């Protein structure tokens, strides 16, 4: 374990946490975030008007970090900017593992005083061997230990996604949206201005963290680009890295004298790096979550040939469009599959070339066994690598009110199929006009480990990217 990794190990898995400078005007934001923390929680506050409110929360308060009669692994610093350098100096003196500076007003302002204070604080931390996260950040989130960046983040159980973000908003939003889809965070860092610890450091930690199976990043800039490249190259053959890049990296471009220099743009190097390292690039928070679901909950596969099941003729057309648009194939099935399908498929109001337009066969008077048979046919067909099934709860509930509704038996049926099958399986839950209903239905699938998507394009794009990644890994291991 490298020095930076072992120091981050202590900070990201703290046994004790101290919050410095929390107050009533902030709604005791940080102490409430830490209310789920499984270790020992302390507060540091000198303002006598604030202390009673802190004690009411059941947290012991001290006048200074150095007064706490315990070792401190992680500190959240929420003091005003002018006080921050002194708190960081106290952290060094106290030999704490690391500190997150929630305090803002540093280099991100672009003003001279902010830049000066950031440099001063950073050099104190560097010289003192202190992990300084931020400044201008929301700190860390460890779901298992209940160390949180926001009080609505879930806690108590383990996760498998390590997340690194330059933006605290995106770190928190990903943890919440992900959780709604079963994508749970192991450790997350809101990295802020990265005055001391950079994305390369966090990546090196996540790469070796046993709890972390998949890594996600939201990046706005780059520090230590060469080191980042080296670590990324070693990481991606072992763990997928999904990157959402916001804005353009500042190139700091110099005058170029060569043709080559004239042709390179500020995004050239980044795009080259993503290809070389097999990075999965995404463009939004939603796509990040979609790709994570395809990585975590679908069986791994390198094939691009889709077997599709839709509920109507119109949906059969557009589900095919979506997968082909994403660069995946929708081939004809084998003769054996067609022979089997012809024995039970209702071709009045349906067809089964691929997609299987299952509405007629499934629809009114639905027979669960018919869908199970379709899935078994696709599973056995050697021309098919992965299967996607349209689950339209709205349509199903409209057609099938009452006890026999597919809405009730589908999740278990798909879960049983997933158990048997070696091929990736995806479910598309169109919200249509009933967002709340779809969200409620989705939970049944999340609980059963079936990845669901809100539309055909979403699942097609996510799966295409995951297939590219799996092919990259296969190529690397040759």
């Amino acid at each position, binding site marked *: 374990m490298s020095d930076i990794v072992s120091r981050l190990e202590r900070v990201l898995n703290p046994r004790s946490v101290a919050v410095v400078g929390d107050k009533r005007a902030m709604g005791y934001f940080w102490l409430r975030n830490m209310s789920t923390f499984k270790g020992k929680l302390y507060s540091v506050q000198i303002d006598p008007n604030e202390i009673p409110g802190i004690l009411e929360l059941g947290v012991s308060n001290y006048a200074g970090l150095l007064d706490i009669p315990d070792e401190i692994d992680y500190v959240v610093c929420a003091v005003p900017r002018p006080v921050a350098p002194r708190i960081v100096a106290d952290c060094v003196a106290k030999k704490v593992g690391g500190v997150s500076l929630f305090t803002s007003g540093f280099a991100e302002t672009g003003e001279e005083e902010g830049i000066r204070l950031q440099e001063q604080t950073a050099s104190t931390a560097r010289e003192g061997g202190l992990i300084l996260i931020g400044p201008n950040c929301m700190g860390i989130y460890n779901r298992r230990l209940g160390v949180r960046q926001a009080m609505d983040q879930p806690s108590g159980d383990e996760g498998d996604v390590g997340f690194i973000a330059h933006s605290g908003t995106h770190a928190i939003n990903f943890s919440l949206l992900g959780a709604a889809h079963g994508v749970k965070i192991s450790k997350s860092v809101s990295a802020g201005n990265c005055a001391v610890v950079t994305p390369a450091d966090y990546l090196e930690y996540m790469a070796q963290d046993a709890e972390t199976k998949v890594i996600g990043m939201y990046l706005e800039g780059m520090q230590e*680009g060469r080191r980042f490249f080296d670590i990324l190259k070693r990481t991606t053959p072992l763990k997928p890295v999904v990157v959402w890049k916001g804005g353009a990296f500042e190139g700091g471009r110099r005058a170029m004298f*060569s043709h080559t*220099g004239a042709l390179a743009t500020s995004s050239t190097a980044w795009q080259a790096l993503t290809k070389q390292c097999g990075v999965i690039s995404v463009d939004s928070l939603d796509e990040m979550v979609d790709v994570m679901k395809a990585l975590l909950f679908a069986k791994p596969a390198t094939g691009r040939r889709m077997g599709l099941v839709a509920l109507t003729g119109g949906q059969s057309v557009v589900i095919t469009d979506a997968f082909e648009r994403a660069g995946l194939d929708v081939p004809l099935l084998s003769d054996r599959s067609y022979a089997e399908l012809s024995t039970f498929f209702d071709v009045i109001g349906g067809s089964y070339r691929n997609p299987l337009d299952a509405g007629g066969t499934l629809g009114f008077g639905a027979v669960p066994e018919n869908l199970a048979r379709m899935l078994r046919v696709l599973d056995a067909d050697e021309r098919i690598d992965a299967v996607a099934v349209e689950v339209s709860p709205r349509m199903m509930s409209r057609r099938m009110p009452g006890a026999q509704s597919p809405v009730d038996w589908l999740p278990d049926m798909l879960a049983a199929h997933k158990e048997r099958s070696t091929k990736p399986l995806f479910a598309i839950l169109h919200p249509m006009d009933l967002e709340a209903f779809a969200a409620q239905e989705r939970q049944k699938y999340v609980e059963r480990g079936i990845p669901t998507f809100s539309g055909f394009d979403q699942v097609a794009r996510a799966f295409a990217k995951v297939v590219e990644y799996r092919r990259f890994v296969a190529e690397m291991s040759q």
Partner: protein
Amino acid sequence: MSITSIIDRAKTDGRRTLTEIESKDILEEAGIPTAHARLATTADEAVAAAKEIGFPVALKIVSPDITHKSDIGGVKLNLTTPDEVKAAFDEIVAAAMKAQPDATIDGVSVQKMARPGIEVIMGMSQDAQFGPVLMFGLGGILVEVLKDVSFRLVPITPRDARQMVQEIKGRPLLEGYRGQEPADVEALEKLLLRLSDFIEKHPEIAELDLNPIFAYKDGAIAVDARIILS
């Protein structure tokens, strides 16, 4: 001269741009085949060099201050007689002095006219965040118009080299479009790998152009080359 002594000499002279002859000497030493060039400082020297190398020859201005040689009339190709060489020498020097009166002119390079091949470019520039970036594409004078190029960070792997060549839109040209001679893709990939290796070993090199490289069905050769130091 060795790579380090050429670079040291340029540094002593306070130059960032190496001449074509210096650049090619360095690349040859790194195992990258070039159309070898000789320096002539007079028209007579140019004729003598041409006779020794064998006609036809190409003449190009050699000046650390002139980077885009063909733009200023500093390149004459396919010269087949001593008289043509003599005239070309004078015309090139006159054109260079007219275009850039302050430029230092070392002379004119004489090189054997390379057999025409498919023109490709390889090069390197520096990215502020990620360091040296290697480029491959369709070369010649149209490179900045077509911008049909691919990039990878140095160092590259054989997989990267393969993808760089496969990625460009003009790939069918490399495969022998409409009965033309195909390019030796394997040789191009090897060249990219050697270049990456060379760049990694020489961080003092800021930018690099091999343009054009003539690609044949059996091998490839850098016809022009330029190295810029940091």
